[in-house]
């Protein structure tokens, strides 16, 4: 089955109020071409599940997020995402903040189709005050320990970005860390994977060891070729983070005119191709 599609087709499946998962970690291997397409769309009131990076600030600024379920929001080389900080301090989003490990557990529970997974993470902390819907569960064994019953985080749609893929939806990461992208896919009803390069399946073996082939085609409904699609987040070994661009983006949080200029130059465009042209012209 040929699953090749476009960002526009994928994002056209989104409906107001849906829960979407965005793979990657901080400012690393984020499906940014999809995020930019969401910014161009009219969809709103999203619940976004993420180990957050710049997609959170961008979606907050565009008023797309109703609720954020997250472990953190960071740009890595800039510890806190400044546009996210602004949105939080304005009380603009519902913030379902979790411990980083709890988020993994919620995604894993959903990907295993379990109602919850037990963990000690969260016990004694204010994560349980912030998320009053998260309950405790008593071990049925002799220890009778009370644990956090981390509920499954079920996704309507998941978006991930991989280095390589084929037209059938097999995906390969070539960087140092798979993050949790496989779990996002298994936790979701619909799954879209952008890749740096679509290639014949047989050629993928030459790109990296077997262990890099973490996404199989049952986990993906649509594949989109998006060269430089994770920009300005990093996507090694294809490219590093565009630190200069990220700095420029971060600085616009404190300067409304600079933000409007950034938005006009890089976001108020018709397509990803125009974005990549604008970036190349810098």
């Amino acid at each position, binding site marked *: 089955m040929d699953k090749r599609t476009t960002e526009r087709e994928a994002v056209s499946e989104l409906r107001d109020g849906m829960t979407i998962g965005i793979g990657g970690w901080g400012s690393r291997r984020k499906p940014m071409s999809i995020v930019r397409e969401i910014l161009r769309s009219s969809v709103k009131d999203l619940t976004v599940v993420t180990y957050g990076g710049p997609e959170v600030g961008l979606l907050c600024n565009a008023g797309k997020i109703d609720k954020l379920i997250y472990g953190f929001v960071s740009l890595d080389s800039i510890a806190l995402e400044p546009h996210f900080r602004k949105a939080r301090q304005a009380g603009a989003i519902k913030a379902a903040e979790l411990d980083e490990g709890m988020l993994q557990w919620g995604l894993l529970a959903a990907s295993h189709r379990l109602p919850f997974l037990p963990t000690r993470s969260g016990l*004694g902390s204010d994560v349980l005050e912030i998320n009053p819907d998260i309950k405790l569960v008593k071990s049925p064994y002799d220890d009778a320990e009370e644990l956090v019953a981390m509920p499954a985080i079920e996704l309507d749609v998941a978006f991930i970005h991989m280095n390589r893929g084929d037209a059938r939806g097999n995906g390969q990461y070539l960087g140092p860390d798979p993050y949790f992208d496989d779990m996002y896919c298994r936790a979701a009803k619909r799954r879209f994977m952008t890749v740096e390069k679509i290639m014949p399946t047989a050629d993928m073996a030459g790109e990296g060891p077997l262990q890099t082939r973490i996404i199989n085609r049952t986990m993906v409904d649509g594949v989109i070729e998006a060269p430089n699609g994770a920009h300005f987040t990093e996507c090694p070994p294809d490219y590093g983070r565009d630190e200069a661009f990220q700095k420029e983006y971060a600085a616009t949080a404190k300067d409304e005119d600079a933000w409007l200029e950034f938005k006009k130059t890089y976001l108020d465009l018709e397509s990803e191709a125009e974005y990549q042209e604008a970036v190349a012209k810098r």
Partner: protein
Amino acid sequence: MSDATRSATRGEICAIACADAFRGNGEILASCFGTAPAIGARLAKATFEPDLLMTDGVCTVVEEPNPVSGPGHDLVVEAWLPFRAIFDHLWNGNRHVIMAASQIDRFGNHNFACIGEHSKPKAQLLGMRGAPGNTISHTTSYWVANQTAKVFVPKVDVVSGVGNDRAAKLNPASTRGHDVRFVISNLAVYDFQTPDRSMRLKSVHPGVSVDQVIENTGFELTIEGDVPETRMPTAEELSLIRDKIDPKGFLGREVPNPE
């Protein structure tokens, strides 16, 4: 005391106190937030705790981590530790982390998440990050680069790291890994070796008075008799810090030397 030792800065004394926090830890993962803790862990590993595991800050365990000021040598990788394996590792308990604290209270409840109400904070800080899971799972110490009564507070705005009073209310099986061990600030070192596991002044850094510590603490601190001084670095430790671990002097930016 040699001339070299006498020239130790306040930052270097803090780094030594952080190194000493790892003393006796053996073969565990040492993780750090902040410059003084990062220097301390490297120093401990280079001297009295050679079996400590350290990462490159991304996803590999390396034999000798880079200087705190950036790449310095070719890294020899010991093992792969992507984020999902970090969670496996820390839930297993084999780790001692030193986390920065924006607020900390008498029982070691910690906040670096936000100031004010969580639903609409006055100041959004780092967020919860891994603090809840870290503190319930393994040994945790804290680093405060600029201690004031606004950091050492009667009550933290949001509990990200679990303190001793809250842990005491949980099932003992849940807190088998909970161990809030030290707080190291630019003024002093603290532990929780008291009957109710509240904070005790363990040592003051040379040049700091106990009154100065009290002035900069917003709660009642246990102070027993004559408080010892934090130890000075050895000449070997100072040359390791200055020549190998922090050749660009990042430490002085985090902890300015008192005038």
